[in-house]
């Protein structure tokens, strides 16, 4: 496990396992170094700050537990969100870490997720007549209501579960789509947006 390429992956895997058992802040570099069989200094070399570790661990957990379904139409997007929220309820500690990682300053510049790119593509394809500003704020609002952050906030502050959070998402998505200038959306998008 001391191969140069595998070390960070092994550290992240060791951290990911612990997320369900304890608060992320309690996971020490020392215990990770012991688990992987390397020195603590090596852990620091790969993850100079805890934000680096947080980001990488969240990415690994996302790939492992919450891999987003590919979608190319509105029904597919909504289904993907429903599934994601459902998976978050199944693994709340890991989902909360995702939400937390999304709210720290990006470790390496601005990073658009696969999900955000897919939503943007969907909006652009369905409503080519929408001006760039409306397109961008529509896509960003949809993503923000489909995010782990929305799930986490609704769960902590409102005691809501996946099913209800999905309904919140659907109402918000419906209003956001309705807010676009009249005639911009083809009928198919609006039909897809009805609850």
């Amino acid at each position, binding site marked *: 496990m001391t191969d140069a390429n595998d070390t960070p992956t092994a550290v992240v895997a060791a951290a990911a396992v612990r997320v369900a058992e304890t608060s992320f802040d309690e996971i020490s570099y020392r215990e990770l170094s012991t688990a992987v069989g390397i020195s603590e200094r090596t852990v620091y070399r790969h993850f100079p700050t805890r934000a680096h570790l947080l980001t990488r661990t969240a990415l690994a957990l996302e790939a492992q537990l919450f891999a987003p379904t590919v979608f190319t139409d509105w029904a597919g997007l909504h289904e993907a969100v429903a599934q994601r929220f459902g998976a978050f309820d199944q693994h709340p500690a890991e989902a909360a870490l995702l939400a937390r990682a999304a709210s720290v300053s990006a470790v390496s510049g601005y990073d658009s997720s696969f999900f955000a790119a897919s939503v943007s593509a969907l909006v652009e394809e369905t409503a080519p007549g929408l001006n760039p500003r409306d397109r961008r704020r529509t896509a960003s609002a949809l993503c923000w209501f489909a995010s782990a952050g929305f799930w986490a*906030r609704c769960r902590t502050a409102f005691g809501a579960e996946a099913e209800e959070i999905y309904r*919140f998402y659907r*109402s918000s998505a419906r209003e956001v789509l309705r807010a676009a200038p009249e005639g911009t959306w083809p009928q198919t998008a609006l039909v897809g947006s009805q609850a």
Partner: protein
Amino acid sequence: MIGPAAEAEIIAEQLGLNRTSAEILAAYVELIEELGTDDVSMKLIARRAGVGERTIFRHYATRTDLLLGAASWADRVVFARPDYDSVFDLPLALRQTMTAYGQRPDLAFLVAEAMMRGAAGTDPAPSREHLERLLWQEIPDLQEDERRSVLAALCHLDSAGTWVALQREFGMAVHDIADAAAWSAEATLNPLRSRTGAHYG
């Protein structure tokens, strides 16, 4: 020194903080802005707040407690929401709030992250009470499920997380973030406009 004096004292009381705690948090928040979250020592906080290091530990047993305290303080004092007494004024207030986050990004990230630590973190929906009261007053016949849905959406938008998400995932500039957040809140409120109580309409 605690920011704009009178206001900060009221907020300290609301957060259940005594004067010393409030002074420690105010000092820490100032230092985070100057040095970043990773580089502020206890010694420095103590000196800035004019207390001993032991006093800090008596008020905040762990570094995490101190960080979470600073995050609530920053959101309530540094990013104090403008006063508004109609829920339909939230979009305008949001513009101001998002602009304030954009002017102090380090603190905005601190607040956003502290709210995403689950039950152990800071309240992820601090504007809930205010918005809930306005909704009751202005749209008294709102159904329970609809009220929850609108409230969740508005609280979500009125958070540092919104600024972070729009900045990080969409690379938006400060002005565009303020615009997008206000626009989303308008959209959320649209279906309620025709339903305000008789005494308003």
